[in-house]
């Protein structure tokens, strides 16, 4: 990042949320880079940027699309790069229809399920299954031409109209990114939850990646797209996930009816017959996990105890679980260092759900709001709940902090760092490790005489971790299990060196294959701390990065197709003729001896068949994807839809909002009616939530600390002077903010940092709300929680809620107290005439259009495309993954809810598959695993290099190239030198 010539920070408040990471931006700026901040608010990031471009929340695709349009129409793209390294030349199926043709729908939309069948989005292939290309780029079915048409209406005028960005500012952006891209220069994008917390989150990132590919900024120093995540080991908690749809190492949770048998499961994960690259060893990874968990009980004969794994059948995400709780379908709830009463959307729903539980365990340092909601929560104050009526049993268990336990965090760049233990936890405090170990021990003890086959998995589980002199579980022993070890033979018990040593015959076990090697040779690699001064910039001997300690991704693209650097200035990795090897400032992320001119006659077959100019090595075709034939559930190209509660009409399409977004129709999750609908004027303003430097998420680790609390002591809202004048708000006085769900109060910061925007002929006021405060009795500072205002509507790809665009209104003074507060909120709801249906109409185009879209789909299917949800079970392909069954199972999940309408059930199924994709992001790549950047932001991941592009490879391979020869033998190659096949761009330190 420090090498960039231009940095566009959009959807991120980097300086505030990642101050230490921002040092690289400061450095780039000192070297002369231009820094532009595109954001609804003027933030501390903006303060040190060269330029602020205020934008209406949720309109990012219009802006980025307009940049794409300008680049394409003026021929400003990096032609050589685009031709060589992207799929611009590929022809797309004749059946494909664009949103431009269908009023906002792509072809393949099924109104029954509100999801797409993506078979019409695929490549045209010749008889051999190889994709058809047009090197001239002139064929109207080329990706290049489709892209051009798709974005043709994304004009500067549209940007002014919909984003509220002045034409001059747009021109400045165009100039900045185009002049700072090319052979000599690179531009970098940085984003965070500002993009992901939208119902279009994943597509925002896609749009940027298309732009970056067109400009040739991928895989090159100072280029790329950087995801900024918010939590210490958010990466780790998807790698070794506590997520409903994943097992460690991005192995999917098996789905009922889809992965009935181990064989079916393994097929879905990957076999040499269906995959190239490391996923071909899916059987090994799965076997190793099962062996690691069930040890001797996992045998070849019982399919390594595959049956022990529970099966999912739909979405079991936190918001679905919430609904289940509200319907008394859940008894117990563990909160581990998490404060959903404040930190989750629609906080009231969260707290009400807790009141339906039988028991709850809160493990934290302090009495967070999620631990005290039953005695001093907002619903107690409003009289909606009474302490003496709440049956929930509460356990507060003090947790050990990061100095009181050893273990690893995986930071945003997949770097796994070991923390040494400094002191013992005080009092009854203990680590999660000890707690879960002890809990498991007791549960097993209590069940030890059970004959019930249901209890076998618990009793057969390997649970014999060594205890140290303090009576604590040795975390290194767990790390060793994660790493994996040999079973039997002379190496019995020895740690695996890497995941290539994993076998599928039960002679090795390993808990998370991508972490294999972290304990190689019995050394805790994550604990390595060679000072940076004693090693080069890559700092390969500082901790350990998965996979196989690779740190830099995709850098083959930093050289021209012929292997020479694009320019002296941006020299990074290049082909050395003399030695016949790739070399450079970094470990080449490519088969080390694959000459630039090398060509394979096969479209598949592993890295051995990569062409010498296929830099995006985890893509099936080695190309960067401008058009995504699969992988995204809501369209092959990003297209602009208005946010859920937008008060603005979609200027591009009749289809107002994303037809595939996930809505939750409930009385306690009402939505504003939407643009143009009566009642929408009741909630005219836009709330957008964010974080401050001084606090950490829901405040559990900051609002109890005097040093941080004094810096930002009170909940506030940021409003423009214009809005203050209009509503009559006093600077630093009080305001009440009302959304369709709740009303909160906040102090008023009237500031020119907030800019009213002229959108569609009317003025849109955006109101900024930090979300760190909560109501409770224990924190050093408390205040109303912004998240209470939010409704739950989700991105269909990754299931992240939209918190960056909330409709609401503001008035002077403090909010009512007690029961009056409920009446107050309801008064507004009545005035707006809200019902669970409000704003939740998914399809807003005519039936004819829908029919046409659906017809395209069937035509395509008739056309005999082999691919339809190719590896369905894992859910790489969207929409139809679970087909009708999913709908059913979704009902099983949700129908308990009184308002578990068909729509939301369907949505859930989509979510599910999308979610699987989330995990799949990382399973796709053929050669190696690319980073999943799931984070509070976006499980789909951020860096398109790793995320999008990577994740699609798999299904493409199957769907479009899948019939090609599959040479499992080529695997030996890949296995030989892990360093040669690395993934993706990323010299950003952040």
């Amino acid at each position: 990042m420090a090498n960039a010539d231009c940095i566009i920070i959009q959807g991120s408040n980097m300086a505030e949320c990642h101050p230490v990471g921002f040092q690289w931006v400061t450095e780039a700026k000192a070297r002369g880079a231009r820094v532009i901040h595109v954001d609804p608010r003027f933030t501390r990031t903006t303060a040190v940027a060269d330029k602020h471009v205020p934008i209406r929340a949720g309109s990012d695709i219009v802006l980025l699309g307009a940049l794409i349009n300008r680049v394409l129409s003026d021929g400003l793209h990096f032609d050589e790069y685009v031709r060589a390294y992207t799929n611009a030349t590929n022809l797309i199926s004749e059946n494909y229809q664009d949103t431009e043709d269908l009023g906002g729908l792509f072809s393949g939309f099924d109104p029954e399920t509100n999801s797409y069948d993506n078979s019409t989005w695929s490549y045209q292939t010749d008889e051999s299954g190889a994709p058809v290309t047009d090197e001239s780029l002139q064929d109207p079915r080329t990706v290049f031409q489709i892209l051009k048409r798709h974005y043709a209406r994304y004009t500067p005028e549209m940007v002014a109209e919909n984003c509220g960005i002045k034409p001059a500012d747009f021109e400045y952006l165009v100039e900045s990114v185009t002049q700072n891209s090319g052979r000599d220069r690179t531009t970098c994008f940085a984003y965070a939850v500002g993009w992901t917390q939208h119902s279009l989150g994943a597509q925002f990132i896609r749009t940027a990646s298309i732009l970056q590919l067109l400009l040739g900024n991928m895989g090159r120093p100072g280029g790329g797209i950087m995801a900024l995540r918010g939590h210490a080991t958010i990466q780790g908690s998807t790698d070794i996930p506590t997520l409903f749809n994943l097992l460690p190492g991005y192995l999917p949770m098996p789905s009922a009816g889809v992965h009935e048998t181990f064989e079916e499961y393994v097929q879905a994960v990957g076999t040499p017959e269906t995959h190239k690259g490391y996923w071909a060893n899916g059987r090994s990874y799965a076997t190793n996990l099962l062996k690691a968990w069930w040890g001797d009980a996992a045998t070849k004969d019982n399919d390594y105890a595959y049956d022990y794994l529970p099966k999912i059948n739909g979405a079991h995400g936190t918001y679905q679980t919430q609904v289940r709780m509200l319907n008394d379908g859940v008894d117990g709830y563990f909160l581990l260092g998490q404060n959903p009463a404040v930190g989750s959307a629609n906080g009231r729903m969260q707290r009400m759900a807790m009141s339906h539980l039988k028991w709850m365990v809160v493990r934290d340092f302090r009495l967070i709001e999620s631990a005290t909601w039953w005695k001093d929560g907002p619903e107690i104050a409003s009289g909606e709940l009474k302490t003496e009526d709440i049956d929930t049993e509460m356990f507060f268990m003090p947790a050990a902090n990061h100095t009181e336990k050893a273990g690893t965090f995986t930071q945003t760049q997949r770097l796994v760092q070991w923390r040494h233990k400094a002191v013992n936890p005080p009092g009854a405090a203990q680590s999660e490790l000890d707690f879960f170990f002890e809990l498991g021990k007791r549960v097993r003890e209590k069940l030890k005489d059970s004959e019930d086959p249901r209890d076998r998995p618990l009793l057969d589980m390997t649970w014999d971790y060594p205890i140290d002199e303090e009576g604590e579980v040795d975390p290194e022993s767990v790390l060793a299990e994660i790493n994996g070890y040999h079973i039997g033979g002379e190496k019995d018990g020895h740690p695996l060196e890497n995941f290539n040593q994993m076998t599928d015959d039960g002679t090795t076990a390993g808990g998370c294959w991508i972490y294999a090697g972290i304990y190689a040779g019995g050394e805790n690699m994550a604990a390595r701390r060679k000072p940076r001064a004693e090693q080069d910039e890559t700092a390969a001997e500082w901790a350990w990065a998965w996979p196989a300690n690779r740190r830099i991704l995709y850098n083959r693209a930093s050289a021209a197709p012929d292997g020479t650097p694009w320019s002296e200035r941006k020299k990074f990795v290049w082909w050395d003729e003399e030695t016949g090897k790739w070399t450079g400032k970094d470990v080449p992320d490519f088969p080390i001896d694959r000459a630039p001119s090398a060509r394979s006659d096969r479209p598949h077959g592993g890295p051995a068949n990569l062409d010498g100019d296929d830099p995006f090595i985890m893509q099936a075709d080695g190309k960067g994807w401008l058009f995504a034939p699969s992988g995204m559930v809501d369209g092959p190209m990003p297209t602009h839809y208005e946010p859920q509660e937008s008060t603005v009409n979609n200027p591009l399409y009749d289809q107002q909002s994303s037809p595939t977004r996930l809505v939750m129709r409930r009385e306690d999750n009402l939505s504003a009616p939407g643009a143009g609908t009566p009642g929408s004027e009741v909630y005219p303003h836009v709330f957008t939530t964010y974080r401050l430097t001084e606090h950490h998420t829901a405040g559990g680790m900051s609002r109890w600390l005097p040093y941080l609390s004094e810096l930002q002591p009170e909940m506030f809202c940021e409003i423009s002077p214009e809005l203050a004048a209009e509503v009559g708000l006093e600077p630093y006085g009080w305001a009440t903010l009302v959304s369709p769900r709740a009303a909160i109060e906040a102090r008023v910061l009237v500031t020119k940092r907030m800019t009213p925007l002229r959108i569609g002929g009317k003025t849109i006021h955006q109101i900024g709300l930090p979300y760190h405060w909560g109501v409770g009795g224990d924190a050093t500072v408390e205040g109303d929680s912004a998240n209470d205002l939010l409704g739950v509507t989700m991105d269909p790809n990754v299931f992240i809620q939209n918190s960056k665009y909330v409709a609401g209104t503001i008035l002077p003074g403090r909010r009512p107290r007690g029961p009056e507060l409920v009446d107050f909120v309801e008064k507004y709801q009545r005035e707006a005439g809200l019902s669970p249906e409000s704003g939740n109409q998914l399809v807003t185009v005519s039936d004819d259009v829908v029919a046409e879209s659906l017809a395209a789909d069937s035509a395509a299917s008739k056309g005999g495309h082999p691919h339809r949800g190719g590896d369905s079970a894992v859910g790489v392909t969207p929409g139809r993954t679970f087909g009708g069954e999913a709908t059913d199972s979704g009902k099983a999940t949700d129908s308990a809810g009184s308002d578990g309408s068909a729509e939301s059930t369907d949505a859930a199924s989509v979510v599910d598959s999308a979610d699987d994709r989330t995990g799949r992001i990382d399973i796709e790549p053929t050669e190696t695993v690319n980073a999943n950047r799931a984070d509070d932001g976006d499980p789909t991941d951020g860096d398109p290099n790793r995320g999008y592009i990577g994740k699609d490879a798999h299904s493409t391979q199957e769907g479009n190239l899948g019939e090609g020869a599959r040479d499992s033998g080529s695997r030996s190659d890949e296995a030989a030198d892990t360093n040669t096949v690395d993934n993706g761009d990323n010299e950003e330190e952040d």
Partner: protein
Amino acid sequence: MSTTTVDDNAVADGHWHGSAHERKGFFTDTSICIGCKACEVACKEWNNNPQDGTFELLGSSYDNTGSLGANTWRHVAFVEQDGERIEAARESGRKLVNLGMPSIRPRTDESEAKPLDGALGAAESGSAGAGASGGGLPETPPMGIDLLAPGALEPSDPEDIANMDTTPPDTEDFRWLMSSDVCKHCTHAGCLDVCPTGALFRTEFDTVVVQNDVCNGCGTCVAGCPFGVIERRDDGTINTPTDRDDRKAADMDVPDKNTANKCTLCYDRLVDGQEPACAQTCPTESIKFGDHEDMVDKAHTRVADLHAKGMTEARLYGANPNDGVGGTGSVFLILDEPEVYGLPPDPRVPTKDLPQMYASAGMAALGMFAAAGLAFLGSKR
């Protein structure tokens, strides 16, 4: 270029013989400050300073600690400005550039140091420099340019600067200034001069530090500081009274109560060869720490860079050894007039006037004596 160390150890008040240390100081470059306040926290955390205030918004943008004081030794100011003010700042900066370099006049203070060197020594000559008499001033070349100074060869005519081929920074209509303030560790330190107990002393690093085991809390130093930095740690500075019952002060231990407190430039870290906590933590290196001379050099280079980019609003604060406090150990690059950040525009160490005040007090005393004498003589009985 820096003339602050011309005299072997008369750099500042107080002497350390055989001190092996260079003068240490900060250069705080506010143009790259992101207002994260890590410096405030790291400082408090290291020095175990109590939180102050009442956990209420102070009504000053994102600044809720208000100012430097007994507990807050690093303070980040937040200033929101509109286009008009930006233009004014740019203009005033432009004027400042045209005043030329400060280091032309031969140094008059230290080179003529009296037995009571330092502030008092400087006082005699300094008071002349302050223009009280206007007559016997040392020659001051008008609009001089020091060719050795960075930026000296840059055009100094405002027109020329305006016409320089630079890309003017954008963000014309609004800006948000952030600046981390700290004790200036003055060359002539008012607090140090007036301290009656010797609790304040000049360290071997030429910084100014309070010895909390000596200080008896007389408070004179508080009045002696032209920058409003040092303060006595009293109830009022720890828990300001509040009338809102939802705000309560934190339960914290309060060390060194009722004594004067201020930035020590992490004296206890310096003695062990460590960097001050604020400088170490600063994510963007807005706070730089090092030998004072280097810091001043860096500051000059940086301001020249910014001017070359058309940011004429950039200026240095405290880098002039001829100023009223003999230059400060903590040098700042700021983007507007000092008072915008709560800094005095023309601070003078009060001791500079002390000889004159003593003289006047002496005359007054004699007068009183004479008056008393005359009273007796005139009142025969």
